[in-house]
Structures are given as C-alpha cells and as structure tokens.
C-alpha cells in the first residue's frame, strides 16, 4: 500500500514536470518577466529575513528566483564584445562565473533599497514567433519619478531568458563592455578575471 502510494506520488510528480515543460516554453517573454518579478516581490514583502536586510538571504532569493531567468553566457559574451572570441573556453567559463557572482551581489544590494515598489508592465510589441524581444516595465515608487526598466530577452529551450537589463536608459551590458575592454587593454583577459575575482571577494579596490 505504502509502496503503491509512493509510486503514485512519483508518477504525479513526473507528470507535473512534463506538463510544466511545454507551459514554460510557450510562456511569452512579458509573462516570464511578470511571473518572475511578482514571485520576487511576494517574497520580498513576506520574508522577515529579507525585510530585515539579511544579505545572505536576499542573495539566496535572487539565486533561486531571478537567475534561472538570465542567460549569463550571452550576457557575458556581449559585455566582452570582440574580446570574447580571444578568450579560451576555460577563461570564458571563469568570466561567466565571476560576472554572475558580481551581479548577484549588485542585484541583491539594489533589491534591498527598493522595497515599496510597484511594477507596471507595458504591452509587448513583438511578432508571435520572435526569438529576441524587449520587455518594457516601469517601477513606481511613492513620491519619485518612475524608473523605466527594460529587459532584452532571448528565447531558449528553457523558456525566455534575459541577456541585458536597461535601467533608466543605462544598459548593464554596455556599461560593462567599457569596464571589461579597459581591463583587458591593460592586463589581458586573465587580468580581467583577476579583477573580477578580487572584487567579488570584497578585496578589490576601484
């Protein structure tokens, strides 16, 4: 009886998994942004540790909720620009890792600042079979000018993923492209990796 029940549970879980897969693949880009940010806002509002500003917990939430929806490889390669092809696969792997860590820390820090925000989602203007779209949102904060946040998104096998975030007209990828190329110019790709790693350990001086 017990065995039978556990089989049943597994079967259900498997069914659920397979049922979920096509649903995610069919989800539109703006729906993906909306789902992610709403889940995130819900946790921010409800989680007492996040409310208390517990950085470790905020990072955990960002890792679990936000980062599965970001295409870090694409983001890193775009920020590297033409230097991407000059880096060997091992360097590329390290770059993606370090850039990812830097973004977790930055994003978590920014998140701690924006608590009482409201999101406004603009209608998506894109062809139904487009593989690259921009989702436009606006963050409304009481007593302050709204901040426009756009997500450049690409369709992957695991659903839509963001590869650039543009906050108030400032593109993350464009900003880091300058930063990366400057580091590479003076110290090469390994120099950039070293700088990123030092920054992530909290020892990097800028």
């Amino acid at each position: 009886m017990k065995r039978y029940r556990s089989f049943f549970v597994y079967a259900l879980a498997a069914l659920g998994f397979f049922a979920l897969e096509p649903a995610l693949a069919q989800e539109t880009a703006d729906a993906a942004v909306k789902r992610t940010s709403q889940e995130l806002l819900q946790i921010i509002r409800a989680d007492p540790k996040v409310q208390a500003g517990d950085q470790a917990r905020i990072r955990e939430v960002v890792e679990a909720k936000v980062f599965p929806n970001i295409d870090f490889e694409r983001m890193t390669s775009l920020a590297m620009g033409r230097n991407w092809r000059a880096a060997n696969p091992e360097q590329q792997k390290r770059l993606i890792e370090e850039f990812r860590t830097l973004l977790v820390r930055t994003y978590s820090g920014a998140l701690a600042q924006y608590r009482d925000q409201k999101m406004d989602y603009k209608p998506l203007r894109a062809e139904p079979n487009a593989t690259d779209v921009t989702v436009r949102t606006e963050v409304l904060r009481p007593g302050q000018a709204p901040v426009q946040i756009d997500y450049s998104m690409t369709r992957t096998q695991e659903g839509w993923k963001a590869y650039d975030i543009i906050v108030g007209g400032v593109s993350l990828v464009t900003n880091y492209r300058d930063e990366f190329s400057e580091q590479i110019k003076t110290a090469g790709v390994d120099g950039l990796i070293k700088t990123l790693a030092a920054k992530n350990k909290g020892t990097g001086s800028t």
Partner: protein
Amino acid sequence: MKLHSFTIAFAVLLLSACASTGGRVNADPLEPFNRTMYAIHEPLDENVVKPIAQAYLDYTPRPVRTAVHNFFGNIEDFFSGFNGLLQGKLDKAGHDFGRVMVNSGFGLLGLIDIASDADIPRGGEDFGQTFGHWGIAQGPYLFIPLLGPSSFRDGTGLAIRIAASPILYIPAWEVRTVLEILGPVDLRASLIGTTALVEQAALDRYTFIRRSYLQRRQYEVYDGQPPPEAKDE
C-alpha cells in the same frame, strides 16, 4: 550683470567646440585631465560631502526632507517647463508650468508636491537636453569635482542653469546662504543609494560613471526612446 555676459561667452565657446565634433568620436578625449578631476572629487565627496548628506538623512525627519526636496523640485520644474518650450514640447511644458503654479500656490511655495498627488507628470527637461534636442552633440566628456559627470554641452547647460538660479537673487543673504547649502545637500542625499550601487557594481568607478552618464543623457535627450545601439560588435 558681469556674471551673465561671462556665462554667455562661455556658452558660445563651449557650444562651438561641440558643434565641430561630429560623427563617431572618442567621447572622452580629456580622460587624463578628467581622471585627475575625479581623483580630487572622490576624497572630497567621501570625507566631506557624503558624510554631511548622510547626517542630513540620519538626523532630519522625513517630512522636513520631503518638503526641502519638493521646494527645490519646484524650481527645477520651472526650468523644465522653460526647456520644454525651447524644444517645442508644449504638452510637457504645460504640465511643468501647471505643476509650478499648483505647487507654488496651494503647495506653500513648493513645500508640498500636490501636483504629483494629482498625477501631473514631471517633464524633467534641462538646458543640456535642449541643446541635444537641437542637434548639438555632447562634446568632450567632463568630470567636474563636486558637480560630478558632465560634458561640454551639459556643462554649458548647467552653467546657464546656475547663473539663472532664482536663489542667487534672494536679497536676504541669510536665506540665500541656507538655501545655497541645502540645495546641494538635498541633491547629494538623494544620490546616496545610487553611489552605493556604483561602488558595488563598478570595476573602475570612473569608467562606470562615465558610461552610465552618457547612456542616461542620450536616453533623456530622446525622451526615453534613444535610437538603438548595436549590441554585438
């Protein structure tokens, strides 16, 4: 009066310098000079300006800070309206002048931002954006200690804005002095979160601030719809 003719001469000089730099050019030809300016700015900000702004945030009740912020915002709205007119954006200018009238009258000289509660949007225009709208390029990037990132074009706009500041013309020197100090403190305090973010995100703060600034200004000149930039190089 002397100040005015100086400002105008300065403006003409800078603008003509901008006009001659067309096409795709190095945005920061003065980088060595600017980096020196940044090296002067950073310790000044870190040790003097930022602690004052932080103390202001820590020891001033929020309603007071909001009123101060609204007061200066009201003056900015007036200039935004004026620049909206210069750019032929009549609806924006209408909103801004409407805001100024409502907030100056019913909002006690701008201390209360009634217009925002009534959902009258801010134009957010300034002289630099007006020049940009007229087709004048940024010109060389400039980092000005204490004032922050700028450019020949935007710096010219800022010079005009400062020279035209109504606060400079307040006859009672005590009031004038208080407002001249309070304005920058309010501005720096509103940027505390942003500078913390830059510190966290940047590998090199100078480059990070420069690129953010130039992107942001491009976005503002085009009212949030800048022409797309190629992502792949």
